[in-house]
């Protein structure tokens, strides 16, 4: 079979314009399929959790994310056996600089500085910067991705204007930390936020959520149950779940992405089938006579079938490769431009698994679409095909 590879390649490039157009058309669809799979991965699958992620839990109000928990819960959670660290996690919202400029939107969260790097052990920061964050009330730290996006240097003065938290915070950037995954986030001291809120304000003593790091993997489930049991009969019952489960639920709240992605992917795959089938049958129809000549030369029917299928495979794989490259490019553009509140979107990318799947789908669909024209060509008798006048 291998020795017919030159013939297969020659055939694929015979009508250059058609092959190029087919490859381009298939590549567009395969590129899209790659991007859709990448979106599916970050939104609904999330990949394997890292060890630190697997240990992280989120405690939030049982009824709704919009309702807060008492800040006193943080201390009570810290005393539960099996909890390594816990920090308040207060969404600040508000605005930085000109809120109409998209690049000025990023996550701003009030946390407990002494717990931050124990709840997120995967974040790395120089020791002196971490100490400055723990010691200065108005200190804040930013992720590397955020600092470089906005050109922040250490010592930068950052002013956040609150909306539902009616305060203006003047922060001093004392540290820039590195995170294994791209994330645009700013952390500042929850104490400073509390002090800024007027005495008697309900918001002073509540937090949006509480982030918890369990000590060992075996404890994760029991810690979550212990937290929920502790507050079950209080006025503020909690639901504690792993970071992964929490994010998946948040995505399903945003909309039925699963159904949308699957429906669109099915439409795209079907389009590939149509385009590829159409081209292949056009080529085969044109070469009907040729097939007769090949047969007279002693090529067997299965061999002819193989040659035509091989041509489909070559075109499909070429398109798959180009599609993957464009998918990779598009993913990085989308990751840059997408709104920050969609979890994981900043990690959008074509992984080897997605690229492999994309190529596999290309090959399978290409071969399937070629099957019908190839079979009819290989089964036709020599006489009929030689008589054929295109």
């Amino acid at each position, binding site marked *: 079979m291998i020795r017919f590879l030159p013939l297969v390649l020659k055939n694929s490039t015979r009508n250059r314009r058609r092959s190029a157009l087919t490859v381009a058309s298939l590549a567009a669809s395969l590129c899209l399929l790659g991007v859709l799979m990448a979106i599916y991965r970050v939104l609904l699958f999330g990949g394997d959790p890292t060890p630190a992620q697997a240990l992280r839990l989120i405690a939030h109000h049982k009824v709704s994310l919009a309702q807060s928990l008492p800040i006193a819960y943080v201390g009570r959670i810290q005393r539960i056996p099996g909890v390594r660290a816990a920090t308040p996690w207060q969404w600040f919202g508000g605005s930085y600089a000109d809120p109409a400029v998209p690049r000025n939107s990023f996550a701003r969260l009030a946390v407990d500085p002494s717990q931050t790097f124990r709840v997120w052990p995967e974040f790395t920061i120089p020791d002196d910067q971490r100490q400055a964050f723990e010691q200065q009330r108005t200190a804040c730290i930013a992720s590397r991705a955020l600092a470089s996006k906005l050109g922040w240097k250490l010592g930068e003065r950052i002013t956040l204007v609150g909306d539902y938290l009616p305060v203006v915070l003047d922060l001093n950037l004392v540290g820039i930390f590195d995170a294994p995954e791209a994330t645009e986030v700013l952390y500042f001291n929850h104490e400073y936020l509390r002090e800024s809120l007027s005495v008697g304000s309900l918001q002073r003593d509540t937090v949006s959520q509480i982030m918890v790091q369990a000590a060992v993997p075996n404890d994760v489930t029991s810690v979550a149950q212990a937290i929920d049991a502790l507050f079950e009969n209080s006025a503020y019952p909690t639901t504690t779940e792993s970071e992964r489960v929490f994010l998946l639920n948040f995505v399903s709240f945003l909309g039925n992405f699963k159904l949308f992605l699957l429906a669109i992917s099915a439409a795209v795959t079907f*389009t590939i089938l149509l385009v590829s089938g159409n081209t292949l049958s056009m080529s085969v129809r044109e070469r009907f006579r040729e097939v007769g000549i090949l047969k007279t030369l002693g090529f067997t029917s299965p061999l002819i079938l193989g040659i035509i299928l091989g041509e489909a495979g070559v075109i499909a794989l070429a398109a798959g490769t180009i599609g993957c490259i464009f998918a990779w490019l598009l993913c990085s553009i989308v990751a840059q431009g997408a709104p920050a509140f969609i979890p994981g979107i900043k990690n959008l990318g074509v992984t080897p698994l997605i690229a492999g799947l994309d190529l596999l789908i290309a090959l399978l669909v290409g071969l399937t679409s070629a099957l019908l024209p190839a079979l009819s060509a290989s089964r036709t008798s020599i006489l009929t095909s030689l008589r054929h006048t295109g």
Partner: protein
Amino acid sequence: MAIPIIYNLRNLVVRKTTTAMTALGIALTVAVLVADFALVNGLQEVFRRSGNPLHVLVLRKGSNSELASSVNREVYQNLREQPAVAKNSLGLPMASPEVVTSINVPSSASARGITVTLRGLTPIGIEMRNVGIEQGRWFQAGQREVVIGKSIARRSGRAGLGTTLRFGKGHWVVVGVIEEQDSALSSEIWGDFNQISSDFNRSDSPSSVLLRVADAAAVPGFINFINEDRALKASAISERAYYDRQTVAGAPLQFLGIFVAIIMAVGSSVAAMNTMYAAVSRRSVEIGTLRVLGFSQGSILLSFLIESLLLSLVGGLLGCLIALPLNYFRTGVGNMITFSEIDFQFRVGLGAVLAGIAFAFIIGAIGGLFPAHGASRREIVDALRGA
């Protein structure tokens, strides 16, 4: 002189497999676009029906949602006495203090339940909304009773007339179902203002105040008046504009849809180009003959372009047909402003269909232009030889 369109039509019919496959490719692309438009259209319709142009919503300064707002009771007392505020038949000012929060309602589809907006309001607030009860009755003041929007009752599957919900400081009985409105209000649960605000410790700070202005012309002036009064520390917005802003809830899905449709369009216009090149090369002799008969280069170009457009028209119409059943499809999206789900129906409107057909024509024009140009520029002798 133009070549008759019947020539192109017959040609498309002769090559029916190729025509069908190419048209179907275009159809799927168009269907994705039309579906996306229908989604946005449906969502906009829900919010459009939610806002009354005579209503002004007062929030705390700096808040952009009722959920994140709290207004002092004094502000409410002050505003209800304003002369611009309309009076009802009993002579009471149409000013409604409301408390808004979100709660979790059990759902038969998801173990976590669904998040729903809970609104506590007074009889004036109900009167201003102009909605009716479809089953059961309205809640009574002073009772732990609620009425539930029809969309929520349907989406939840487990919260309906006669059931008990648990939120705030205890249990609440569902005593009525609000009639279907296809507005954001159908996705809410309502109860007595005093009962709900005391459960959520909001008795002295309602989330918002809704006012009806007697005269539509006075609305902008009244909004300015509230915004410029620094002592009030409140901001006013027309109810219509408030809901318009919430259509961003569909933005992630809308973005995804348009993104997909554009890439698919690249693919299908290239596929159309392929088909048209094949058509041109097969009909080389015909082109030569037509030229000999005196048809100009321009009419050859036009003829092939028309053929490509016809092909895309078939695809466009088919695409709209594929998307049409979506009209009966309902779904919910999370609203980041109210933190609760909005139930809506896809609406494949005339606008979406026209946009879909226009989109198909663009695909056809791009796909047909180069092959048609190539066909018109062929030397007559070469064309006749079929080379």
